[in-house]
């Protein structure tokens, strides 16, 4: 194909497609309990109504249901399925590819649910091309936004939900360069953690660093009197014993104090650095970094849990570093527990903050999330393909972001909260090694109907990954919760 199409001709051809409707999709499989279980595992969602028939029977749903964020995955074609020639979006994307707009990212997904769907139901959707934007210069590249609307129905024609979906189809390599430092300002130091000062290790503290390599948080414990000592010491000041062992701490604790270095800036860190003095639940304290939070989210007393930064490789510039690899303990906000007793609308007020929720972004999460949402696009599982497409590594698909968003809000609201809508907008991509940090607050609440809107953000090291809203119905005093579902 050629990319010499005149822009005006291209836009005219694209606009001609707007309003066209495709035929209903032909689903190959019904909503499936096994895939729901895979999805729950990938998202870390322990909501019982998706996997536990007894709990589901006792819930507002009266039986097993599929997570609402999965509405648009069931009629996908799968690995071997080519793009449908009948799809209006498919036709628009083909035109754009022919014109050189070969890369694609999803930017908006807005799901509205009339009801939850159940295992065994066969879903299909009818797609309408809603809009094609003019050519836009974006951070990723020059491209067009393509918006479709999808109406989801069961085999017997019941309309169960709608999706608004928007992608950016862009020319790789045409993005705006990242804003540089100000005129005359020194460049920021290289943030590669391998450039951080290495810890000095000797016979008295090597157990700690050996543990760190195994992702164990070891705290010295006296074998004479069981007292914990951090930093470690060869002799117990309490009982006098030289016989010192260690325990593996749970990794749970809270922020006892913090400092935020901004000057001078040295290699190996991103500034401002969030340094915490962490008090473990076992009692010992240690200095570490607080990750997955912004400066504004730091507060003395906040619950934390350990995570690990494999900071210094065993090999440095091709030579094996005799000092060995180094792993540093880090602390992120403690994963909020899933609420067992559902919040009532009367318990919620506008402005209430949801707890912070920091998700480590791993290759496993990205790949498992993509496959659990039946998204076989190569950039979500094949690093080489992602690099060829101009990305430093694989990145998370929008359905995984949507799934984590749903888990964040339903874990906070409780098992009988009913999701009515999930609307997200994506920004900075989620690559392995990053942390996706959710925060949110209640935007509105209607005590009469139980309708609650939660506004949320998910930030990573590159910026805002996701912003969005989730609409829920919470139990009210006047409406029995069984009503909420059907």
């Amino acid at each position, binding site marked *: 194909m050629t990319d010499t199409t005149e822009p005006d001709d291209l836009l005219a051809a694209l606009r001609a497609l707007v309003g066209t409707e495709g035929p209903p999709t032909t689903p190959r499989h019904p909503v499936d309990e096994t895939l729901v279980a895979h999805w729950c595992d990938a998202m870390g969602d322990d909501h019982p109504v998706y996997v536990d028939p007894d709990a589901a029977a006792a819930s507002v749903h009266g039986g097993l249901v599929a997570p609402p964020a999965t509405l648009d995955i069931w009629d996908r074609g799968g690995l071997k399925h080519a793009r449908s020639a009948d799809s209006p979006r498919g036709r628009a994307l083909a035109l754009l590819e022919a014109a050189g707009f070969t890369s694609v990212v999803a930017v908006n997904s807005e799901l509205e649910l009339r009801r939850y769907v159940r295992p065994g139901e066969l879903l299909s959707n009818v797609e309408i091309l809603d809009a094609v934007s003019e050519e836009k210069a974006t951070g990723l590249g020059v491209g067009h936004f393509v918006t479709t609307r999808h109406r989801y129905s069961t085999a017997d024609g019941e309309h169960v939900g709608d999706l608004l979906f928007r992608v950016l189809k862009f020319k790789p390599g045409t993005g705006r360069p990242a804003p540089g430092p100000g005129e005359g300002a020194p460049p920021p130091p290289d943030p590669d953690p391998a450039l951080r000062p290495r810890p000095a290790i000797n016979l008295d503290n090597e157990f700690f660093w050996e543990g760190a390599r195994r992702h164990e948080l070891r705290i010295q414990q006296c074998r004479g009197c069981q007292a914990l000592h*951090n*930093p470690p010491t060869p002799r117990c000041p309490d009982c006098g014993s030289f016989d010192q062992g260690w325990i593996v701490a749970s990794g749970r604790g809270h922020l006892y104090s913090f400092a935020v270095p*901004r*000057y001078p800036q040295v290699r190996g860190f991103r500034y401002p650095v969030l340094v915490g003095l962490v008090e473990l639940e076992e009692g010992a304290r240690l*200095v570490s970094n607080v990750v997955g939070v912004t400066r504004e989210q730091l507060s003395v007393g906040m619950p934390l849990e350990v995570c690990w930064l494999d900071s210094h490789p065993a090999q440095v510039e091709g030579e094996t570093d005799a000092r060995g690899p180094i792993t540093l303990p880090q602390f992120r906000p403690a994963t909020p527990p899933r609420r067992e007793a559902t919040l009532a609308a009367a318990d919620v007020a506008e402005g209430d903050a949801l707890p912070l929720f920091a998700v480590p972004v791993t290759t496993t999460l990205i790949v498992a999330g993509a496959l659990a949402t039946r998204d076989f696009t190569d950039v979500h599982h094949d690093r080489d393909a992602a690099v060829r497409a101009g990305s430093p590594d694989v990145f998370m698909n929008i359905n995984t972001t949507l799934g984590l968003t749903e888990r964040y809000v339903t874990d906070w609201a409780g098992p009988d909260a009913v999701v009515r809508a999930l609307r997200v907008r994506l920004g900075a991509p989620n690559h392995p090694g990053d942390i996706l940090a959710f925060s949110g607050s209640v935007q509105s609440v209607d005590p009469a109907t139980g309708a609650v809107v939660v506004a949320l953000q998910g930030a990573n090291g590159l910026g805002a990954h996701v912003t969005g809203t989730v609409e829920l119905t919470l139990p009210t005093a006047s409406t029995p919760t069984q009503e909420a579902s059907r």
Partner: protein
Amino acid sequence: MTAHAYAGRTAIAGIGATEFSKRSGRSELRLALEACVAALDDAGVAPEQVSGLSTFTMDTNPESDVMRSLGIKELTHFSRVHFGGGAPCGTVQLAAMAVHEGVADYVLCYRAFNERSGHRFGTGVQDRVPGHTAEEVAYAWTSPFGLLTPASWIAMFATRMMHEFGVTSEDFGRVAVADRRHAATNPRAWFYEQPITLEDHQNSRWIVEPLHLLDCCQETDGGQAILVTSLERARDLRRPPVVIEGAAQGMAEDQQMMRSFFRDEITGLPEMGVCARQIWETSGLGPDDVQTAVVYDHFTPFVLPQLEEFGFCARGEAKDFIADGNIELGGRLPVNTHGGQLGEGYLHGMNGIAEGVRQVRGTSVNQVDGAEHVLVTGGTGVPTSALLLGAA
């Protein structure tokens, strides 16, 4: 009850300093020698009479070089105190003990460096090679996490103070404002005629939150020397003697070098409390007997718990003591009348001892009426030291 035998029987007979600058243009050894010569001139003592030298382990000027260049024929006492800025009053204590024991007649205490134009402490410890000693290993618990400078270590304590006692950045700022107001009338001060407002403090850039730039002491090139001898000898010298009424070093349980983060409480300075107990027990005096104080101010937050450890106010109440104007000239306890290390210069606390001497002599540019007993403290966050000086 502890009573140090040298207390009340030893004295400071002379003080001497170089100018305090950002670029001395001279070697650190030369700065040390100029300060020593000035202190000897102040007292009217000849270099040959000196038989003892005391300084900091961090000082780069060996006693052998100082001795040679001063033309001293014999030394019978030479000693050093460790732990950086915690040392100043400790060197005077060692000198006083040596004099009282008859080991030396005149002991010069000195500290000199090009801390601005040469090695700057504020740049941090990121370039330290990780070795195997206990001192090096201690950095393993902080450096890999980006806590690399004195300001960053102090900031950790400051945040906790703010949390527990409701101390604010403005409370820290009031210390800086008082220091700079005092410096503004001190021609020796780097910030002579340059007072600041609380607004200036609040608007100054972050160094390490919660510390602003104006919470941090200067970086200074200079030298300061203090001449110690017996009270009896001092009576016959050029200046009226300033009596060492008490001198103390202090370390407390679970002490770490500026990083005592692992104690049950981190909002106090128990090592300064160890000094305070000795000073009051030795002198038989108490906070009500003290008219002015030189309180170590490398960073403003630790001025607060020092006032509490010495009993000028109750624990957690220093912020109110300061906000009520007590540390200003005309207040209950004017603090750092020379401008402190934020205003005059950062000489690892040695210039503060000189100001204590001037207050007792009645020669300070910001003289406090009836300054009979003057407290001087050493560095905070580190094992430290303190002095109580008084008129003969």
